[in-house]
């Protein structure tokens, strides 16, 4: 091959590869959507690594943002710790404005933190600067007193949802902290809660509430007025979770549920339980009082473990995007 021809071929290859990588980069979200998030048959959760900066003390809440940064409420250290998606700690914040933060959710660059002891929803910037108290127990007459256990957001409507263990209800606020509506009361009937905990929305804005002491997940219509489904863990009547808490919904609409006292994570589709993983233990892949689960855009699964002061990171076998 002549030298000139060789250079031409190399040039063409370089241009082609550059164009291909540029295309992949620009369309990465679209492509990711096409990758099946869960393999259809017999997925096996694969342990990847721990998120731990050698100082977590009873981590409880976890959430991811658009950049796949992972926010963890380091509950007994009264702070939020942020990791990047390679497992490196980026920063921590909130020590002067938090006591027992137990849940976190991110809405358009703002970090909303539910604090169980202060009985407040605190708002920080994504860089960790304290912005405001969105709502404090007893200081908003429409909301009244409350003990927040979990928080989530509707990023399209700009709404914030939190579960309240004081009145056993769900409270919905707008971004300015104005009361929109609430639903639920103490009890074991349909639409009632006993110590509601995790809360999450699906793509249709249906509201999933971990009704912990009733051992079930209740799914509500977006306005909270109607119970459209009750997930009991095994399909039998009555609650069969031991202590359901944190939840997440993946892109395929499947529900991930942490059972804190069964020490496992279960995954459900619209009709049934697909699989579960984890058991009581301290080894990799085992859980020691897990509390909350979060998912990132490339299919990694983050599970906080209060009892082991760590966050376990998993992917599912066959997922080509997770490292």
């Amino acid at each position, binding site marked *: 091959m002549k030298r000139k021809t060789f250079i031409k071929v190399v040039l063409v290859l370089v241009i082609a590869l550059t164009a291909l990588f540029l295309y992949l980069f620009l369309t990465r979200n679209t492509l990711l959507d096409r990758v099946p998030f869960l393999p259809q048959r017999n997925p096996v959760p694969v342990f990847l690594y721990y998120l731990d900066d050698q100082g977590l003390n*009873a981590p409880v809440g976890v959430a991811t943002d658009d950049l796949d940064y992972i926010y963890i409420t380091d509950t007994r250290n009264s702070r939020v710790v942020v990791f990047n998606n390679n497992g490196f700690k980026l920063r921590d914040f909130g020590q002067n404005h938090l006591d027992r933060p*137990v849940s976190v959710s991110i809405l358009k660059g703002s970090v909303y933190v539910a604090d169980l002891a202060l009985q407040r929803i605190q708002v920080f910037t994504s860089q960790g600067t304290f912005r405001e108290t969105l709502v404090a127990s007893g200081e908003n007459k429409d909301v009244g007193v*409350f003990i927040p256990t979990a928080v989530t957001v509707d990023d399209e409507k700009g709404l914030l949802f939190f579960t309240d*263990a004081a009145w056993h209800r769900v409270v919905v606020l707008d971004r300015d902290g104005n009361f929109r509506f609430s639903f639920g009361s103490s009890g074991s009937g349909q639409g009632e809660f006993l110590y509601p*905990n995790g809360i999450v929305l699906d793509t249709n804005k249906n509201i999933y509430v971990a009704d912990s*002491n009733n051992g079930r997940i209740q799914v509500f219509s977006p306005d909270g007025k109607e119970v459209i489904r009750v997930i009991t863990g095994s399909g039998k009547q009555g609650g069969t979770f031991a202590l359901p808490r944190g939840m997440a919904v993946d892109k395929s609409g499947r529900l991930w549920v942490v059972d804190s*006292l069964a020490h496992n994570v279960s995954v459900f589709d619209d009709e049934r339980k697909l699989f579960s993983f984890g058991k*009581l233990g301290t080894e990799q892949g085992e859980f020691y009082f897990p509390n909350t689960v979060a998912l990132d855009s490339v299919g990694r699964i983050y599970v906080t473990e209060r009892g082991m002061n760590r966050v376990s990171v998993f992917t599912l076998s066959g997922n080509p995007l997770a490292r």
Partner: protein
Amino acid sequence: MLLRKVLLILLIVSVMLLQEAASDGSAPRRIEVVVTQEFGEFTAPTGKSFIILYWEELDNTAVQSEYAVFESKVDKNGLSWLEHGYGSRVTSPVSGEEGYLGYYRYPGIVTIESAQTDYQNYTYHVGTNPDNSYSSARVYPPSENYHANYQKNTATCQGCHSTHYARHPMLLNERIMYNICIECHGDTGTFSKYNVLQGTVEISPGVKVPSPAGAFDSVETTSFHNVFLEDDFESSSMFLLHAPGSGGEKYNLTCTDCHSAHVTSHSSGYRLLKFRTTPVTAYSYVSDGKYNVYYVNGMNSFCSNCHSYYNYGDGSEHDFPEHVLRQEDGDGIKKSGEFYRHPTNIQVSNWFDSYTERNFTLPLESRDGGKYMTCKTCHYAHGTAIIGEQVSPELTAIGETKYGYTTDEFGNRIAEPKDTSSMLKRLDGMGICLQCHLSQIWSNTAYEMQN
């Protein structure tokens, strides 16, 4: 042949009589309490709810129960009882009740808005009278949970127990029990109104106040009963703790050494405190924005399960005699083991004058018209935040590193090793003593100035 028949008949009659004797006045089993707005075909009026008590009477086929319902009402003026009459048979059992015989319901009514605060002031007793042969039921929390009614959700069993792969002789998943307990009673999750780590109790929705037992692990805690250590069942040694006043005995200490996880024949109605002979009888109530406890009996007996030499009076393990003070021509305080110790479980009303009566703030047991001091009069059960520290002469004498607590195997903070302790006392220094003994102090005390 005839003799054998007669003997057989006599045996059968004896067994029947024994059964009859045993059932006479015995308490009904398995009381359950439900608070609901729906009761059969009835719906409570707006703002009201029903209280329903169920209990089993397996041998009773009559329409009426053998037992009546007594409602306790406790406030700062004391304890009183309201009798609601006998229960009656459930004629149309709802789902889940069909398998039981002799279920009865007692409908009550309270305003639902005040339910969570009001219910803390009530205990329902079911029996022949409120003071004898009863079973009791607390209205709050009125749901199946890990301590009662767990049979309705057997998934709760696996939270604590393992059939074939347990790590604890009671088939528990955990060697460190507290990790299970704080899942609900800790400060990182919530599943209960009691936060034992921070030492708070929720008296009404969202309102938390100090709990009567103190805090195990708040930032202010200076001493506490150490339930954070690993149990060591197979070998003696590092995790065993000396209990002052035990006579040198060592114990593992976990939450379940004091509290029964389930309602059993040896768990007190109050806080499920374990007992051998005398149950702890006490009633919590909310008054003036505070969480209070009206103690009646059993607390000293309970503490003496470990701290036996500190317990005097009736029923004490070492059968210490009653004291007659020297100024009353007695021999004074008797020795308990190797030491003279302040008596407990004794009537203290005679120490009270009008000043003491007005200013006394420590908890006493009230029974038979008298006031009794107990271990809990001077000490918290879980932990204290007072500053004053001292050493235990008894443990020094046997050369123990008494308060050498470290971190647990997961690095959780327990306490720094130290040689002294604030002994879970309720007040700094000798402040406790002055609550009774101020009138014995000479010089220009506040007492003298005011009198």
